[in-house]
Structures are given as structure tokens and as C-alpha cells.
């Protein structure tokens, strides 16, 4: 009996040792060591302000993410002894993600763009609430952008940004763009569609894609494209008519006070004009125009907004422009004809005098 028990014991012990040698020793040990504490579901810390920081992490945490094959200390590289005495630093993604890295991590300048952005500047300025890479991309669950489970997947971007920008998210969610994105329409813009991805700047920053004088150009990246707009029955001339309007011309020459697309259509809460909540619904136009033109009345809504005097659809405006065009050409021709006739006549007159 004793012999059997001993033999079984040795067998099991050998088996465990053999299992231990089958995988890279330090990695396995590291993960096991970490999960010794972090693998307990109740492993959490209650912070001073009463918030709970969940510290639960297992070998499944990275499953499905782009870092599936990495282990804890690949990112939490400041942990050198276990249990660690201090709280590990926030993970620095640029540890691997820089151009020319030897890890085989995707190489891009995204982090450089990020450091220049409003978020990067805020971090550098000591704002602890400003987002680092992992705040948008996720921490353990980082997935490729195309992966529908990714925090930065087209359909999830707004929600991700909305974790901090909650009021803007609420306004955007029910806007025409927000609804379109949630319906899976591929051309509709999420936050990053207008603001950019890593190089997001504050809208008061002249570098921003949504700076007052850049708004029209930013909207026109989609709205001036006939091939995109025709799919949804939206007119693509709206951009050109704006650019030729007084507002557009002034904006083009750098005026920041003049109306751009967003001044009238709204910023995050853009809705189709048929929607009674839309800023450009005829009922709301007096209020919308009144922001700049005090005393605006319903007369502001009588007539087409985006007028093109060269288009027949503009009706009387088109025909008046045409009338004046030919009147001017006609006058010019008549004057030139008169000049030549009169000079010819004068030559005859002088000849007759002799």
C-alpha cells in the first residue's frame, strides 16, 4: 500500500514538474505569480474617495486582444519583485510602440501626433484625467480597429469618447451622424471623422480640423463628394453655395466671426431640416439666424438657404442674373459698336470737310 501511494505521489510530482518545463519558464511563472493574487475575483482596492479599483486579472484577460501572446511584465515592466511593494506605474505604450522598435510592435507616428494633441498636452500639463493610449484603446482588451469588439471600432468610438465627453456624446447619439453610425452606415462620421484620431486639437486651436475657418473644409471632405452624398439623397452643392455666399467668402478670407456650417446646422446635434428639433428647421431659423442677426424673423426662412445664382432651380434669382448678364454684354457690345461707327463717321466727316 505504502509503495503504491509513494509511486503515485512521485508520478504526480514528476507530472507537475514536466508541465512546468513544457512552457517558457519565466513567463509562466510570472503569470502564475501575478494571478496568485490578481486571479481572485474579489481582489480589489477601495480608494480614498470610496471608488473601487478592480484589480482582477487572469490569463484570460488578454485573450482575443492584439497582445494575446504577451505576459503581464511585458507591459508592467516596472514590476520586478512579487508581491510588488508599490503601485505599478501606468503602462507606457511607447515602451514598444515607437518607430524602429525591436519588439515587432506596429510602427507608426501616432504617438507623436498624440503628444501634440490636446490630450497629450493635457497629460504633459499634469492633468491626471486626460486620456493616455489605454484610455481609448482599452487596457487588457486592446483589439484591432476593424474588430467590432474594439473600443476604437467605428461604431464604438463615440461611446469611448463619451466616457469623458458625456454631454457631447448625448447630443451626438441622436444626431443624424450618430444615428447613421449606429445603423452601420459606413460613410457616416463618428467623433474621429471630424476631429481626427490622434491629432485632436481644441476647437479654438488654429491647428484643429474644426477650427472656425476649417469647419467648411472639414464638412466638405464628405459633403462636397457627389459619390458619397448621392447615396443618401443629400445635395453636394451645399458646400460650393456656402463658399460663394457672403459667409463662405468671409470665412475663406479668415473671418472667425462669420457663420460656418456648424453655426447654423449645429455641432454635435446636427439633424435633418425636416426634424422639428433641427436648428435649420424653418420654425427654428429665426432663432438660429438671430444668434448673429439680432431681430431675425420668419422672413429669414422664406427662400432657399443655399442659393446658386447659376442654377436654374434658383428660379427668379437665376433669371435675374441671366438678364443682367446679357444686359451687360449687350451694353458692352452696343458701346463698342457705337465707338467704331462714330469714329468711322468722323473720318468721313473730316474727309468731307476738306
Amino acid at each position, binding site marked *: 500500500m505504502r509503495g503504491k501511494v509513494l509511486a503515485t505521489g512521485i508520478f504526480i510530482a514528476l507530472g507537475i514538474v514536466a508541465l512546468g518545463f513544457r512552457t517558457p519558464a519565466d513567463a509562466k511563472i510570472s503569470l502564475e505569480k501575478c494571478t496568485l493574487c490578481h486571479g481572485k475575483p474579489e481582489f480589489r482596492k477601495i480608494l480614498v474617495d470610496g471608488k473601487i479599483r478592480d484589480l482582477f486579472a487572469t490569463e484570460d484577460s488578454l485573450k482575443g486582444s492584439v497582445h494575446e501572446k504577451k505576459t503581464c511584465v511585458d507591459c508592467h515592466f516596472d514590476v520586478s519583485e512579487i508581491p510588488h511593494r508599490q503601485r505599478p506605474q501606468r503602462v507606457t505604450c511607447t515602451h514598444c510602440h515607437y518607430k524602429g522598435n525591436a519588439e515587432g510592435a506596429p510602427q507608426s507616428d501616432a504617438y507623436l501626433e498624440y503628444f501634440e494633441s490636446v490630450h497629450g498636452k493635457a497629460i504633459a500639463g499634469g492633468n491626471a484625467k486626460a486620456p493616455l493610449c489605454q484610455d481609448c484603446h482599452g487596457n487588457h482588451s486592446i483589439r484591432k480597429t476593424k474588430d467590432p469588439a474594439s473600443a476604437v471600432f467605428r461604431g464604438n468610438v463615440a461611446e469611448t469618447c463619451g466616457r469623458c465627453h458625456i454631454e457631447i456624446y448625448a447630443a451626438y447619439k441622436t444626431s443624424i451622424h450618430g444615428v447613421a453610425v449606429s445603423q452601420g452606415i459606413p460613410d457616416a462620421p463618428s467623433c474621429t471623422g471630424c476631429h481626427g484620431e490622434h491629432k485632436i486639437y481644441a476647437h479654438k486651436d488654429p491647428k484643429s480640423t474644426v477650427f472656425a475657418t476649417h469647419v467648411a473644409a472639414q464638412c466638405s471632405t464628405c459633403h462636397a463628394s457627389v459619390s458619397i452624398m448621392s447615396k443618401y439623397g443629400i445635395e453636394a452643392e451645399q458646400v460650393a453655395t456656402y463658399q460663394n455666399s457672403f459667409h463662405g467668402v468671409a470665412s475663406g478670407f479668415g473671418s472667425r466671426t462669420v457663420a460656418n456650417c456648424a453655426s447654423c446646422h449645429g455641432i454635435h446635434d446636427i439633424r435633418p431640416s425636416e426634424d422639428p428639433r433641427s436648428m435649420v428647421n424653418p420654425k427654428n431659423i429665426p432663432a438660429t439666424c438671430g444668434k448673429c442677426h439680432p431681430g431675425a424673423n420668419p422672413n429669414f426662412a422664406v427662400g432657399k438657404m443655399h442659393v446658386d445664382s447659376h442654377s436654374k432651380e434658383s428660379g427668379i434669382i437665376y433669371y435675374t442674373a441671366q438678364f*443682367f448678364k446679357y444686359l451687360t454684354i449687350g451694353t458692352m457690345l452696343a458701346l463698342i459698336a457705337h465707338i467704331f461707327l462714330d*469714329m468711322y463717321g468722323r473720318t468721313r*466727316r473730316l474727309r468731307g470737310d476738306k
Partner: protein
Amino acid sequence: MREETRGPVYVERMSVLFRVQHMLLMISLLVLAATGFALMYHENWLAAAVVRLEGGMLYRGIIHRSAAVFLMAQLVYHAFYMLFSREGKRELREVWLTRRDFDDFLQAMRFNLGMGNEYPRFGRYGYKEKFQYWGATTGVFLISVTGIILWAETFSMRFLPKFVLDLTLIIHGYQGLLIFVVLLFWHLYIVHLHPSVFPMNRAWLTGKVEVEWLRQEHPAEYEKLKGEGVI
């Protein structure tokens, strides 16, 4: 006596006051054209350069409206001057459009086309000068009306719907173009290219014209002045 009549003899055609009015009118119209066409043809690189020269859209607008106020003030002053001053009343009688001017025009055209034998004998102002004067005056008055509507856009829109304002903008621009074209081509002819004055009739600077020129181009006026003993 013979010695004296050999050189050109001059007679005054524009008094100092009219020369000043003409100069101010010219300046304000050129400023209005430069600022206005820069907006109208903003896509053109030259227009864009002019807008930048004028200090951007804000200053372009301020310059345009300042010049417009100045022009309208001139128009009002001119109207009062022509109606109530002694010199103005005399000039108004001379420049007033009559049936004869229409007949003169037809007669001139017939002569120029070789269908008539006699060219009209113009007085102080022929149909050419009168057309220029009334064309520009009417044009300036009408463009002022549309300009004021556009300037006071919020007030205008208490009474006018948006599309009327859009229409006004179109009309204002083309009115400007029309005035510009008429003044350019008409001036180009009657005071520059016309062989009797080429390259320029200097009356707008010196106020004087040659008596001989008057005898040829405005014979009725020449005879009238001769009768009055002025020349």
C-alpha cells in the same frame, strides 16, 4: 492780332467745383469698384489679392461702405447743387435730356452708316455726354438703393423675405458691373480714344478745352459762346 490767334485758345468747360466733384466721384467709384468686385469675383486670384490688400473681409466691407456713404453724400450734394445754385441750374438746363438728343442720336447713326449727309451740331453737351451723365447718375442712385437694403439686412428683412435679399445682392453686383462697363467704355471713347482728344481730354484737370475743338465737336455751343462774346 494775327500773332495772337495763331496758338490754341482755350475756354473753360469745367469750373473748379465741377472738377472737384468729378475727382471725388472718380475716387469713390474706383474704391467701390475695387472693394465690390473683389467680393463679387472672390475666386479670382487678383480679387483675392485685392481683398488681402484691403485688410481682409471686415475692412473690405468697412472701406466699401465708407466710400458708399461718401458717394451718396456727393449724389445728394450734386442734386441740391444742380437744382438750386446758379451755375448748377444753368448746367442742368444744358444737360437735361430732350427730344432733340434722341433725334441727334438717330441723325448721327444715319450719318455714320452713310445714310445721311449731315452730322448733328451738338450744343454744350451732345447725346454722348448726356447719356453718360444720366446713365451714371441713375445707376448710382439705383445701386445706392440696393446697397442700403443689403447694408441694413436685418432691418430690410423685417419687410422682405430672404430670397428678395438674395436677389438684391445679385442685382447690386450686376448694377455695379453695368455702371463700371458704361463708364469705362464711354469714357474710353469720348474723352480718350476720340481722335479729337486722344490721348485724353484734359478738361477734368485744367478745366479748359481748345476753342477749335469746341468749334468742331460742339458747334452750337461754340456759336453760342461767340454770340455771348466769351470767345
